[in-house]
């Protein structure tokens, strides 16, 4: 990581008896794209609002660019935010919306207009500059909101679930727009979302939060392949989480055996995390493996997820290419068998709680 631009040290936010954020420590580098992800109420938005100065931390310290920000009022921060609701000013047209931040900084009208148009042009909505924002489409409004936040050329941009109101195909396009912008501008993006696909697709680093605490920080790959806890493994989905015990025959799971980790000794218990795309499923019987029954299937374009169950009701998810399905002959009766390689699985550290 480069020089940290943002440092949160021991940051706590309480509302009465409720603690929204517990002693948070986080460094965000200059020019880094960080996504903060977690379920509703995990404290991700509160953290973002504290960076913007819309909430004051109950304790701890927030520094941006080396300056302690705790006492700096919102309007003196230069930490623009893209809001979930966009919060465009409905009584102003697109250009006037973009000009707002410049107007507040006392930039003269001609200069304001020039810079606003430049940004609208850059986001490919120059032709809508004089349009009422309420007549624009979701994607266009999104671009106005981005231009409005970036026109003052800040060092950091805060984004609060900005794509959650868009159609799926627009989300993908806007993800492209955002990552390109961030790379071109070289500024820090802090992106709050509950969507794993958005976070994983765009961020250099992903911060997973749960109940006001950081559950894991790492690249998308690290978080997906090596979750730090059961919570993270469940949250990022498409993972199988299974209990495993070291036996004479190898590592035993409800679905069968796999090779044992070298350092394991007899009787050791583990929790294995196995990505759904690392499971191999076949019709051929494998000795000592549990016969599986197909419960349901889920198509997502070219990838399909199959859900299997043992006789004991233990469920396993398998993800595969749609074209590989034919070999499995899903429609005929008879059991399936699962197998995988330990090197593709991840062993969770023992839970502290």
């Amino acid at each position, binding site marked *: 990581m480069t020089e940290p631009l943002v440092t949160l040290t021991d940051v706590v936010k309480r509302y009465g008896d409720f603690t929204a954020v517990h002693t948070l420590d986080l460094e965000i580098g200059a020019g880094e794209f960080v996504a903060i992800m977690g379920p509703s109420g995990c404290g991700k938005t509160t953290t973002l609002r504290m960076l913007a100065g*819309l909430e004051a931390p109950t304790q701890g310290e927030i520094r941006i660019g080396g300056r302690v920000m705790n006492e700096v009022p919102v*309007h003196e921060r230069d*930490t623009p935010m893209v*809001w979930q609701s966009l*919060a465009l*000013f409905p009584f102003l047209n697109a250009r006037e919306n973009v000009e707002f*931040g410049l107007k*507040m900084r006392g930039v003269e009208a001609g200069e304001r207009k020039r810079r606003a148009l430049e940004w609208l042009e850059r986001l490919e909505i120059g032709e809508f500059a004089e349009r009422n924002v309420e007549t624009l489409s979701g994607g266009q409004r999104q671009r106005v909101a981005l231009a409005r*936040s970036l026109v*003052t050329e800040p060092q950091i941009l805060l984004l609060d679930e900005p794509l959650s109101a868009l159609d799926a195909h627009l989300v993908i396009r806007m993800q492209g727009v955002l990552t390109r912008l961030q790379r071109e501008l070289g500024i820090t993006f802090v992106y709050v979302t509950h969507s794993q696909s958005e976070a994983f697709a765009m961020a250099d680093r992903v911060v997973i939060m749960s109940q006001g605490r950081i559950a894991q920080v790492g690249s998308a790959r690290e978080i997906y392949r090596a979750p730090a806890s059961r919570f993270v493994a469940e949250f990022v989905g498409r993972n199988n989480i299974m209990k495993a015990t070291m036996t004479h025959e190898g590592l035993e799971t409800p679905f069968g055996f796999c090779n044992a980790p070298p350092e394991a000794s007899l009787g050791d218990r583990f929790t294995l995390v196995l990505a759904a795309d690392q499971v191999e499923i076949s019709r051929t019987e494998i000795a000592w493996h549990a016969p599986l029954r197909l419960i349901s299937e889920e198509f997502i374009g070219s990838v399909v997820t199959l859900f299997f169950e043992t006789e004991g009701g233990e469920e396993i998810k398998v993800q595969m290419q749609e074209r590989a399905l034919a070999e499995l002959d899903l429609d005929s009766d008879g059991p399936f068998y699962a197998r995988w390689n330990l090197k593709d699985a991840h062993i969770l550290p023992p839970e502290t709680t």
Partner: protein
Amino acid sequence: MTRVLPIVLYGWLALVFVFIFAPILFSVVFSFNSDRFPTIPLGSFTTHWYETIFADPEIGEAAINSLIVSLSTSVIATLLGFCTAYTDYRFSFRLKGPYLALILLPPTIPLIIMALAMLAWLSWIGASGQLWSVIIAHSVLTAPFAMAVIRLRLNQIDPNLEAAARNLGASEWTALREVILPFCRPAIISAACLTAAVSFDEFAVAWFVSGLNKTVPVVILEIVQGNIDPQVNAIGSLVFLTSITLVVLAQVFFISKVART
């Protein structure tokens, strides 16, 4: 049945409108009638009664008084209404319920009681019988209407709008000026028209507290008390025209912006 019902309902609607507007319509018709008494058949068409009211200095003075009162009331009541509505929107505090209830109380008090109370209070503090006594009383009376209209508009605001302005560098006062006021503008105009109309028409309170500074409704009563005078129809028509214009204006702003979903 499905075709008969709409016809019946439209018929009913027409009857309601006739019932409401017939007296006003008659008043307008008789204001142009040359006969002294409002009887049918009508006499000839005349603008005589309008000429006499424009020539009457007492009515002219009352009209000016009414204009001053309704304009001042409109400004004061709208300002008060905006402030209370914004307080309600922006802040939460203990006793907010009672605070709002107290503010919305005046229109629920019978006008005659309100008028008597105003007279007693204003004369006790030595402020009765002046034009501004009427302005004070009318402001108290109409501020709740202004508040209700503006509050409705504030309920539609994106709760992040003000924060977004501050996030972009606006101080709290600047955000109020640059975001909240422009957002509320249609409601503010609507509230101003509405309060002006209510004040312009209001009789009971004005009669009690105006003293010698009579407003138009007070003068109308005095004319009617004296004798039957078709001038009243002429004044009434003009007052109606003024009020209905203000109310329609209020509605135009209200419907075009505030009530749009």
